[in-house]
C-alpha cells in the first residue's frame, strides 16, 4: 500500500537513470531527454502489484505500448509482460521494470539475428517486429 500511495499525483519514482513523475495516473518522466516511458493502467494495493504500460525500451521505441505487471517477489520485485516469456527482477520496482525493458530489447536483437527458431519464437519475432521501432 505504501508503494501504491507513493505513486499518486506529483510523486516521483526513480527509474534507472531517470526520475519519472506520475500525474493523474500518467508517467511523464524523461530518460536522458527522451519522451515519456509509461503510464499506470491500474494499481492493486494488495501485495503492491501494479500494472503499467511502457512505450519504450532501453534504447528503442515501441510504436504500440506493452502492458507489464510488477509484483513483489520476496524482498524484491519481478516485472513481466503477458506478451513475452520474459521477466525482469530488481531489488526495487523501477529496477525490475528497467531490467525487463533490457530483456525485451535483448530478445528483439536475438530474434532479428536469424530465423533459426521454433514456430512459437517466430511468432514472437513477428510480434516484436511490429512493435519495436529501430
Amino acid at each position, binding site marked *: 500500500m505504501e508503494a501504491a500511495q507513493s505513486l499518486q499525483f506529483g510523486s516521483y519514482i526513480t527509474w534507472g537513470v531517470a526520475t519519472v513523475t506520475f500525474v493523474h495516473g500518467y508517467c511523464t518522466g524523461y530518460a536522458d531527454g527522451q519522451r515519456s516511458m509509461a503510464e499506470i493502467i491500474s494499481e492493486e494495493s494488495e501485495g503492491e502489484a501494479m500494472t503499467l504500460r511502457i512505450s519504450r525500451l532501453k534504447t528503442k521505441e515501441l510504436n504500440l505500448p506493452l502492458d507489464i505487471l510488477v509484483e513483489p517477489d520476496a524482498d524484491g520485485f519481478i516485472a513481466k509482460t503477458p506478451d513475452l*516469456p520474459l*521477466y525482469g527482477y530488481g531489488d526495487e520496482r523501477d529496477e525490475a521494470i528497467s531490467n525487463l525493458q*533490457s530483456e525485451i530489447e535483448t*530478445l528483439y536483437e536475438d530474434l532479428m539475428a536469424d530465423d533459426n*527458431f521454433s514456430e*512459437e*519464437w517466430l511468432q514472437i519475432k513477428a510480434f516484436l517486429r511490429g512493435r519495436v521501432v529501430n
Partner: protein
Amino acid sequence: MKNSQFNSHDVKTCCENKLDIQFKDGGELNGWYLLEGKKVRRVTVSKGRKELKPKTYKSMASQLGLSVEQFDNLLDCSLGGQDYQSLISAALSPGSAETH
C-alpha cells in the same frame, strides 16, 4: 519449490552442463536451448551467485518449459539432459497444447 537450495550460478551451471545452453553476457545472462538445431527455449539467469526468489524461480522454470517440480529435479540432478529433451520434444510435438 527448492529455490532456497540453489542460486543463479547453480542454474547457469546446470543449464550449461545438462542442456548445453551457451549464455550470452548482457545485462543478464541469456541462453537458448536448441532442439534438433533450432532455438526452442530461452532462459534468463542473473549474473553472479544471486539468491533465487520464488517468482523468479518459477519464471525460469516457465522459460525452460518446465513445471517448478521438474525444474527442481533438473537442478538437483534427477532430471537429466535426455529427460529434458524428451519433455520438450513432447511439448513441441503436433497436438500438444503447450506453447513456449
